[in-house]
């Protein structure tokens, strides 16, 4: 047991380090989930507020394991034809026309309808075959020879029916095409599902997945993320900037600034050659951080207080 455990912690640490070298800074919790998803071969459902790096996690994983990332963006009305496969209708039409022309040759010398039918039956039926199948993201992921990382993004935006349709894929890594039968994965893909929680995901789906909740990062983690993403920024400004954003998250806002916004803001600061946060600068760039005019108006009054705290931290 203890050696096993050493191995597990070691692996988790290795995953975390691997992410770090690729510019995705995470804590042990997230690394643990990647470790489990890979070992248990289970899909990973990632939830959390927008902009905390859910999609980024899938991208970093794809890079880490060296497999192609196949992405499926969900939206209302997404159906099988767009997510899984479609028949190449045009080619099928051509095929039937070719077949019609060849039909004469094929049937020549046949006696009566019965024999013609037998001959027709002997003829290879390629109308519904994999050659005429146009793979969409899900099927592509199953067919990928070396395995793939499949990202099903914003599953909460799709319909209930689509969610139900995913169940077979998620539990057995196979899908059924009525005309062909079951198609199994050549290599089991690593599957990520992300959700912003705009609606409750069904129990059946949740049961088949590991569940990871990524909250807003704490000060320390956010500093490291900024350091990795915007390395040209000075330490003091970075500390102030992160402290300011952390203070902002404690206010009652319509949309709290996420990590992606902090990164944008940090880049803005670097572009403006800022050396230190001051009220003027903050007010002018607040729209990078906050996306609602109401929020910007609300924060305007608090800027000085927040800034004082942030400068203290710096």
């Amino acid at each position, binding site marked *: *047991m*203890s050696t*096993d*455990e050493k191995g*597990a*912690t070691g692996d*988790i640490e290795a995953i975390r380090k691997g992410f770090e070298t690729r510019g995705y800074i995470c804590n*042990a*919790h997230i690394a*643990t*989930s990647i*470790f*489990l998803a890979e*070992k*248990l071969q*289970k899909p*990973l*459902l990632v*939830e959390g507020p927008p902009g905390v790096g859910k999609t980024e996690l899938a991208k970093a994983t794809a890079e880490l394991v060296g497999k192609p990332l196949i992405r499926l963006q969900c939206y209302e009305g997404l159906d099988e034809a767009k997510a899984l496969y479609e028949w190449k*209708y*045009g080619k099928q*039409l051509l095929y039937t026309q070719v077949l019609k022309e060849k039909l004469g040759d094929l049937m020549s010398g046949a006696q009566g309808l019965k024999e013609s039918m037998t001959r027709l039956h002997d003829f290879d039926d390629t109308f519904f075959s994999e050659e005429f199948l146009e793979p969409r993201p899900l099927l592509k992921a199953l067919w990928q020879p070396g395995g793939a990382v499949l990202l099903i993004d914003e599953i909460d935006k799709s319909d*209930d029916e689509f969610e139900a349709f995913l169940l077979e894929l998620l539990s057995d890594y196979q899908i059924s095409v009525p005309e062909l039968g079951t198609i199994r994965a050549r290599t089991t893909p690593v599957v990520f599902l992300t959700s912003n929680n705009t*609606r*409750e995901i069904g*129990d059946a789906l*949740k*049961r*088949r*997945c*590991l*569940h*990871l*909740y990524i909250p807003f990062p704490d000060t320390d983690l956010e500093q490291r993320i900024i350091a990795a993403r915007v390395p040209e920024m000075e330490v003091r400004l970075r500390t102030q900037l992160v402290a300011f954003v952390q203070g902002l998250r404690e206010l009652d806002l319509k949309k709290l600034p996420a990590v992606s916004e902090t990164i944008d803001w940090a880049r803005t600061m670097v572009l403006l050659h800022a050396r230190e946060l001051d009220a003027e600068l903050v007010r002018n760039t607040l729209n990078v951080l906050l996306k609602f005019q109401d929020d910007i108006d609300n924060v305007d009054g608090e800027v000085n207080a927040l800034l004082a705290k942030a400068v203290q931290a710096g």
Partner: protein
Amino acid sequence: MSEVLGDFIRALRSADIRVSTSESIDAGNVVDLVGFDDRQTLKDALSQVLAKSDDEKQAFAETFDTYFSFEQFKERPAAANENDEDGDPGEQDGGDGEGGDPSQSGSASAPGGGGMGGEPSGEPSSSRGSDLAGLLERGDQAELQMALAEGARQAQLNRIRLFTQRGMFTRRIMENMGLDGLNEEIERREASGNARGAERLGQLREGLRSQVRDYVEKQLEIFTANSGRQLREEVLAQMRLSNVDRSDMKIMRELVRKMAKKLIALHSRRKKVTRRGMLDVRRTIRANIEYDGLLFHTIWKKTKVDRPKVMAVCDVSGSVAQVSRFLLMFLYSLQEVLPAVRSFAFSGHLGETTDLFKREKLEDALVEVLRDFGGGSTDYGQALMDLESLALDDIDHRTTILILGDARSNYGDPRGDILKKMHARARRVIWLNPEPRTMWNSGDSEMRRLAPYCDRALTCASLKDLERVVSDLLRSAV
């Protein structure tokens, strides 16, 4: 080890976390992968398999911390050492007793080594007399913890449900750990004149007893933390609303919130209903351009399901007030799904409470409504007349009128003609009567004269009934 996990999952379930069988199996695999040694990793890993929403994650963290806390024995070593030191001179005086005594007396000058020195001495004694006595005297807390856990397992402590079972389980665990042997050992020492030794062991026994009791209480807390509340909620949901005790109001409010949340989750997406047979020609042609205009892919006309506009009219006089309160609570909590709710309250005269609800917090609003409109003698005729002047213009084919009351109009004319007029304009009129059907039309109840103008007249006495009505309201709105 898997038994530990099984118990833990049971504890999670009693903490309101739903864990399915397949998830338990996953949890087993996870434990095989990461092991029990690193607590943080185990917690991280298990939380991803077993807790799958924000609420559940929180409950999980709490349960994990309580369940896997091994702290109760941590303070004990110090105390046990003290006992040893206290006992040492006594045993020197006593002279005979255990074979290990000389070594312990030798270590008396170095208290730190006392426990260590005593250890080998414990083993021979345990083989002779009682395992438990040796264990206690050695003061090895890890071993004691294991013995306790094993005793608890044999006693099936995980079945504990009632706090009255504490004593029984404490005794059983002690017995499984070898209480009899310990008692014999004490008697034997007393018989052989080692009074101090017996007394010391007696003290240790009492110490152990309180430890076991603590342990049992903690387990009781883990396994029953929520089952009591669950039971209470179940009962309350079915109870006649007029019988609900004031002290349960807090749970009831929570319950209403929960039910409303469930309904919101169920109905928050606007459903589209396909009307098969009605081809949407424009969109079909557009969709089939890619197939050379051959109509492979047909698109049917759809209708969006509209949310109902609700007008809730609540009788707030005496007996019915309790039920109205919950209906209003329900509608208030459903504002996310229901676009337009207008609420009215009456007993003698009728007034609109919509703005009040928008302005105030739910609790304050309810109190105010009951103060302003409650208490008068009920007059349905007057109420309907007031409603007509206030809201008739706003009633259209999307409006559902929800009337909650017992239709007891103190022998006044209930003005069925006004209700008839409203019925003609509205989509639906639903009457909820908190009285059982057999009581309708008895005495001054005017149901017979009002019910004909309602699409449905229902008995609605418990929260479950209310939930059903409101759910129906949301679903059948086509």
